[in-house]
């Protein structure tokens, strides 16, 4: 295991023995065909080597080769002064040489074999244009999303929060990939202890290749086995900027078009950013509708199973004939019926996600209409259940955060089984199990069920409901911010004192 401890920058490439000396390094590099080495401007001149695939050709021509060609031979130190490129370096440290060359620097040596060389960063990287957010799309509000380039993402955030308090701490994670990771927070607002926790956990990451921020998310969350996500993945710079100024911590990774945000409470997974873009009473209503939709989506099919299997007395007499006519011909017990139907929906969903968008809509039609109708007509499932399951699936799509919608998808199955086992009582037992899990869960050390427990009345103002901005005078208390006040101005002359016609 000791090969795989690439935490610090200094044990770069510790997955292999670090090259012993310069020749060893050169031998390794030359083994790749995209590594170019040549003498310039003539046989007696500098030795220039670089990875063709990493270096920007145009820059190399204009800023390096052109300068060298027009000048007599000089020492590397002087040459460094002549070439106007930032962060160039003269060094003989093998580790630094290797890292910079692998990051796209041009290496220049003189004939003097003292091992030192001049490294000039000259990176060529492929970047995507910022585009419209897809998984967190909102009708109103800004339409830009993060891209894979960390620099672009940081730029998006810095533009939104032009303050020196916005601090970015850089890390390298992954013993092979050496991916650049940035922890973002607003100094003076954020709780320093939380930042320490996050940085400690990031420093403890031990894996070879970190490709996406979700890797990091899984490695630094409090409970790594929980189905409930504790950190939010967001692709919206406006979202990140807002929560940073609340006192949360953001984490971004080079190569990942998402940022991780924490700590969170369970409510934050059900609140869409759009709630803040609307007037508060509309925002509140839609948030409540969404919560109701989630509850419906979890409980509807299992309630059906519980009631039909055990507690048919609960159904009012007027409703009973409808159920009987719908279920009378079905040869299966309710649980089997429900599992078949839920399974079908899951299948459709999974298929629709994996397929390209154009084919995906066909799947919807084939699955939803054809299979659904056929299943009912064939007498496999009842109309009522089909309606319930379809509604539940629809309701689960209202969840704005992708990760928790997966949780809700899966959590329905234990409830189904519990309903089959003990009916309504089974549902309650299953909910109690989940409650016991949620009560124990923390997100970066702060309780998951806040503001309900521990009870913080102030935080209710932005939880199930969202009160107007003028009421949100303080930052959320569970973040234990250093500066808890958001609105400093006192209320100007209270409006209620105004009498009629004054």
């Amino acid at each position: 295991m000791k090969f795989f401890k690439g935490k610090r920058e200094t044990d770069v490439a510790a997955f292999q023995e670090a090259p012993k000396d310069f020749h060893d390094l050169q031998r390794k590099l030359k083994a790749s065909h995209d590594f170019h080495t040549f003498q310039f401007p003539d046989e007696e001149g500098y030795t220039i080597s670089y990875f063709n695939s990493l270096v920007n050709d145009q820059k190399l021509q204009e800023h390096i080769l052109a300068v060298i060609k027009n000048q007599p031979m000089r020492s590397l130190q002087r040459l460094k002064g002549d070439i106007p490129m930032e962060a160039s370096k003269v060094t003989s440290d093998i580790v630094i040489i290797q890292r910079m060359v692998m990051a796209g620097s041009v290496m220049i040596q003189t004939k003097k074999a003292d091992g030192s060389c001049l490294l000039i960063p000259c990176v060529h990287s492929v970047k995507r244009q910022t585009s419209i957010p897809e998984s967190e799309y909102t009708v109103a509000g800004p339409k830009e999303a993060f891209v894979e380039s960390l620099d672009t993402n940081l730029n998006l955030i810095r533009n939104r929060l032009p303050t020196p308090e916005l601090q970015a701490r850089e890390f390298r994670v992954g013993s092979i990939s050496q991916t650049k990771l940035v922890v973002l927070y607003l100094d003076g607002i954020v709780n320093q202890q939380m930042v320490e926790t996050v940085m400690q956990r990031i420093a403890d990451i031990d894996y070879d290749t970190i490709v996406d921020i979700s890797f990091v998310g899984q490695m630094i969350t409090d409970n790594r086995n929980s189905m409930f996500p504790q950190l939010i993945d967001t692709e919206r710079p406006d979202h990140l900027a807002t929560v940073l100024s609340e006192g949360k911590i953001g984490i971004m990774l080079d190569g990942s078009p998402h940022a991780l945000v924490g700590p969170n409470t369970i409510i934050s997974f059900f609140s869409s950013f759009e709630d803040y873009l609307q007037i508060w009473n509309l925002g509140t209503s839609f948030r409540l509708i969404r919560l109701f939709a989630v509850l419906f989506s979890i409980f509807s099919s299992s309630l059906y199973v519980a009631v039909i299997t055990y507690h048919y007395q609960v159904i009012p007499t007027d409703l009973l004939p409808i159920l009987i006519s719908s279920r009378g011909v079905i040869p299966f017990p309710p649980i089997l019926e429900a599992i078949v139907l839920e399974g079908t929906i899951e299948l459709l969903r999974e298929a629709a996600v994996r397929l390209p968008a154009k084919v995906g809509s066909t799947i919807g039609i084939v699955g939803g209409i054809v299979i659904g109708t056929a299943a009912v007509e064939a007498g496999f499932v009842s109309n009522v259940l089909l309606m319930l399951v379809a509604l539940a699936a629809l309701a689960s799509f209202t969840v704005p955060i992708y990760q928790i919608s997966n949780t809700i998808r899966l959590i329905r199955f234990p409830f189904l089984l519990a309903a089959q086992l003990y009916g309504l009582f089974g549902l309650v037992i299953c909910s109690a199990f989940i409650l016991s899990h949620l009560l124990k869960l923390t997100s970066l050390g702060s309780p998951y069920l806040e503001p309900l427990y521990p009870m913080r009345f102030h935080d209710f103002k932005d939880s199930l409901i969202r009160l107007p901005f003028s009421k949100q005078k303080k930052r959320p208390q569970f973040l234990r911010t250093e500066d808890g006040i958001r609105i400093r101005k006192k209320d100007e002359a209270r409006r209620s004192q105004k009498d009629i016609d004054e």
Partner: protein
Amino acid sequence: MEIKPNETKLISAFFVFFLMPGMQIGVGVLGFERIIAKEAGQDAWISIIISGVTINILVWMCYKMLGRGTQTLDLVAIHHDLFGKWAGNAFNSLFIIYFISITIIIVRTYLEVIQVWMFPGVNILMLLSIILILVYSFVVGGFRVITGLCLIGLIITSPLILLNYFPLKHAHFENLGPVLDHSFLEIMKACKKMTLNYLGFELLLVYYPFIKKREHSQKWAHFGVLFTMAVYLNSFIVSIAYYHQDQLKDVIWATLTLWKIADLPFIERFEYIGVSLWLFMVLPNICLGIWAASRTAKRAFGVRQRKLLVMILLVILFACIFLDNRIKIDLFNTISSHIGFYIIYVYLPLLFLWQMIVYKLRGHKS
């Protein structure tokens, strides 16, 4: 032996308000009306108030006892302080047994409700195991998690109070008269019967060190007991207004039976939902009881609480399987409520006096 729990495990004083009813209100409220109405008829509401007041006095005594020492005390520390290690541990064991036995009553009675009202042929062993696993998953979370359960349990079950609307439509409040038709002795007898429903406040002696600003928690404890009293009072008055007192003497689960008459356009027979949801009212009782037993044992004998927890759960499992018919359950119920009665009304005041005398003699600051 450490007495101070970690700072992060503490709860704020406010939550004592939820811990009180969390332990006191449980299965009892579903059927206590008949028991006290047998003794004092329509005047039993006076007994509910009298018991409530005495319990408040006892809570005050507990706070006095806990606050008297120079360090944060709990039951085990008080016992060790007053009686020395060995005799103290004997009393501690008594309390452990007492906590376990009230938990057994609660579990067993709730299982009976489920058997009678929902699943007559249910496999008790399996249902019991599932419930105990559930309890385990709460108790391993520690005191904070159990407090959260008390709070959320109360929130989830509180809408059930709206069901009172249906019996109140047919209420006859003249059933409450004539007032004071029963002798003082009868009312006191009802008070004694009422005790079992108030048991649980004495857990304060165990969880006191877990409260953040202990001095400020006393008022919340009193409010909590008053809240419990209000809930019992409400249930009793609704029941006596709906049933006639002679009829009430024959209804075993009066509150539960009242849920039956709820009639909504989309749900009938509400008691199925009510009995299921009531788990959230009973679970805090069970969890707190087991937690208190294991915590006291840990403090007294210095064994790991996790081990004790598993042992206690097994004891409860076997006890509940052993108590398989009504007669045994009733017997156990009577014995335990007697023990409970003497512990809170005799032992606690005596302990209070004894501590006062000892500290006077020692010349502690009072």
